[in-house]
């Protein structure tokens, strides 16, 4: 059923909302609104700070895709691990990593999550079970499968949530990992964030099989395609997938049909798609606007209440930006630390 619905989503290129949506409570909607707004405003601020030269190198923004991580997170449990590519800021914020630490890492400050030595693409939090932040396309799929391996090895009730894009899905190690994950029935959910462009290459130009949820079929891995712009569908599908993995049935693939509004990175002019395509998606399918409309229609909150939320979120982001801007560069002595762990010799 879900699969059939999902297919329709693909055909219409996620440009239309559906009617048979799962129920979302007031709490769900308000939570989703706040979390997604935090990611959106954080990313906008990061983009602005990049523009000011405060953030260097590559900076890949998650704007437009907020419903994916937020919905998945809502369906996960404390202790579940997550790992993703270099488009990772949203994934960190949603699991509760301090926005100040994330932003300070973006500016290369000593107070950043990785002491300023990782940068936008390389941030981790053991405390929040977040394993990066990986710069090599597809590498996180094997690594994430390894997290799931550890869960099973230890008999722990955790699920590894492994995010990758429609570009990574063509890497060889993804299939090596699919094979072993199913062979050993590892507790892993593979979340393909299909934003339709692998940098500048559209899905159709790079993939022989564009229904990416089918990519696990030859290994016997169940998959489904989900409207990744509507957080209700994301959460519902994620609950199903995570339960599947947690109950010992092995891996599960979720193809999230989503869209990134910005270029691949800050320095991508995004000429491979029309401005119309982007603005239509923003106008009709924006994940945050969808929630906002619902909240107002259901009187879960008033316009004024939402303005307060917006204000609070902006305050958090401004605080993070100020913190990051004022975070000093790492002490030069940090150059040679954290390379290997020096052991006390026995």
């Amino acid at each position, binding site marked *: 059923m879900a699969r059939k619905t999902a297919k329709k989503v693909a055909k219409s290129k996620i440009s239309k909302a559906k009617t048979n949506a799962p129920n979302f409570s007031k709490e769900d909607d308000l939570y989703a609104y706040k979390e997604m707004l935090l990611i959106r405003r954080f990313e906008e601020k990061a983009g602005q700070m990049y523009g000011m030269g405060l953030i260097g190198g590559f900076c890949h923004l998650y704007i437009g895709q907020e419903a994916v991580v937020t919905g998945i997170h809502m369906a996960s449990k404390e202790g579940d691990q997550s790992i993703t590519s270099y488009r990772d800021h949203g994934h960190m914020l949603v699991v509760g990593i301090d926005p100040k630490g994330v932003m300070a890492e973006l500016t290369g400050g000593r107070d950043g999550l990785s002491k300023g030595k*990782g940068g936008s693409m390389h*941030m981790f939090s053991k405390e929040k079970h977040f394993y990066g932040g990986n710069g090599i396309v597809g590498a996180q799929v094997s690594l994430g499968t390894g997290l799931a391996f550890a869960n099973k090895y230890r008999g722990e009730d955790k699920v590894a949530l492994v995010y990758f894009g429609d570009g990574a899905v063509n890497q060889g190690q993804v299939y090596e990992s699919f*094979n072993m994950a199913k062979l050993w029935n590892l507790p892993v959910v593979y979340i393909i964030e299909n934003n339709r462009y692998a940098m500048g290459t559209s899905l159709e130009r790079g993939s022989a099989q564009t229904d990416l949820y089918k990519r696990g079929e030859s290994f016997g891995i169940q998959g489904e395609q989900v409207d990744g712009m509507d957080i209700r569908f994301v959460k519902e599908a994620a609950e199903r997938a995570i339960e599947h993995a947690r109950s010992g049935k092995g891996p599960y693939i979720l193809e999230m049909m989503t869209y990134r509004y910005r270029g691949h990175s800050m320095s991508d002019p995004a000429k491979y798609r029309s401005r119309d395509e982007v603005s239509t998606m923003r106008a009709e399918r924006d994940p945050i606007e969808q929630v906002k409309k619902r909240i107002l229609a259901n009187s879960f909150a008033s316009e004024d209440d939402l303005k307060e939320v917006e204000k609070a979120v902006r305050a958090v982001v401004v605080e993070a930006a100020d913190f990051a801007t004022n975070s000093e560069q790492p002490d030069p002595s940090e150059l040679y630390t954290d390379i*290997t762990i020096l052991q006390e010799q026995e």
Partner: protein
Amino acid sequence: MSIEILMPALSPTMEEGNLTKWLVKEGDNVSSGDIIAEIETDKATMEVEAVDEGVIGKILVAEGSEGVKVNAVIAIILEEGEKAGDVATTPPSAPIGTAEPVEQTTSEEVALTPVAFTPASDPDLPSDVEMASITVRQALNEAMSEEMRKDEDIFLMGEEVAQYQGAYKISQGMLDEFGERRVIDTPITEHGFTGIGVGAAFAGLKPIIEFMTFNFAMQAIDQIINSAAKQLYMSGGQVNAPIVFRGANGPASRVGAQHSQDFSSWYAQVPGLIVIAPYSAADAKGLLKAAIRSPNPVVFLENELLYGVEFDVPQVDDFVLPIGKARIAREGADVTIISYSMGMKYATDATEKLVGAGVDVELIDLRTLRPLDMETVLASVKKTGRCVLVEEGWPICSIAAELSAQIMEKAFDYLDAPVMRVAGKDVPMPYAANLEKLALPSVDEVVAAVNAVTYRS
């Protein structure tokens, strides 16, 4: 308060750009995400989005302006209740948040040197310690089994390690003892299972990944270098990868170019890795145990042709050797020969010949290739004044090349002759028996090199 819109940098290198077009005009309402302008960089034309909401109060840089500096104020956004007239037309001279780096502590104040690494010495063994002659194969097997008995987090994974008992029988009997949960056969899929191993190590397990040979580890080298080696640094010390990558490395016998090569210098170049390449069974055992206990990713390079060779191994309860410590295999005063792994075979045989001919050779087995035990190397070279380096790998950018450079830098005044290298030849490994022999170093080449540096030839 009004908000300044600054000329954005749209690439890592952009310093200025052309403001080609405004898509908004004064008085327009904008909100976050609205495209307000187009900017041309040296590479492309990019769109600029508004980050804040409000009314465009003033446009300060007209469209068509060229060479607009990054961070110059290009427009002002008014917040609710503000009027355009409230805003000063002259932008503040110092743009907020410039990209200028914060003044750094000067280099004189901070010594930018790697943290000193002082390896411990080999453990003192009782003088009456019992020795047993065992193969390198057996030593490696004992090392893994002993460690696995003590630590449930350690597991062995690789191709044919379990039911087949190991392609080279290193893991013989381990499936029986530890079960299939801890001795795991993988599909032929190096990139994938290496990544899985590294991921498991991030999660706190201590995987031993066996490569049937290191020739196949090239499939997985991205995970070894980009994921395992760099993780600690990239995470600011948060996440380490306690993992051992082990297997046969170096030239084998008559297997041709793709299965017969030495990767020592490849891995030894990478910060974040520990690289070990033992020769004797005792070193294989003591160092593999240390590798498994290391919180760092360790590349442990074995040699297929040494697997069946027997050496004396001390029979003590827990024989562990220090990582990063070379072994002086023979003390001498005339010349230093330094080698590792199978190179030690040529070096040892040559030493016997040379000592017989009256040359007092000091022979050093590096054992660990990263970190290099330069202390031992330099002390020896300063004593003998002459040095010959022996290895099976290719000569270009090799371990010997590195040693030779460091000896030149740090012991130049002590040298009585140029440092000489005896290495594998700079060719893919040929199949034909005679050519293969020519491609490898030989005892005669080592003797000749020693004769050259001692001016005996």
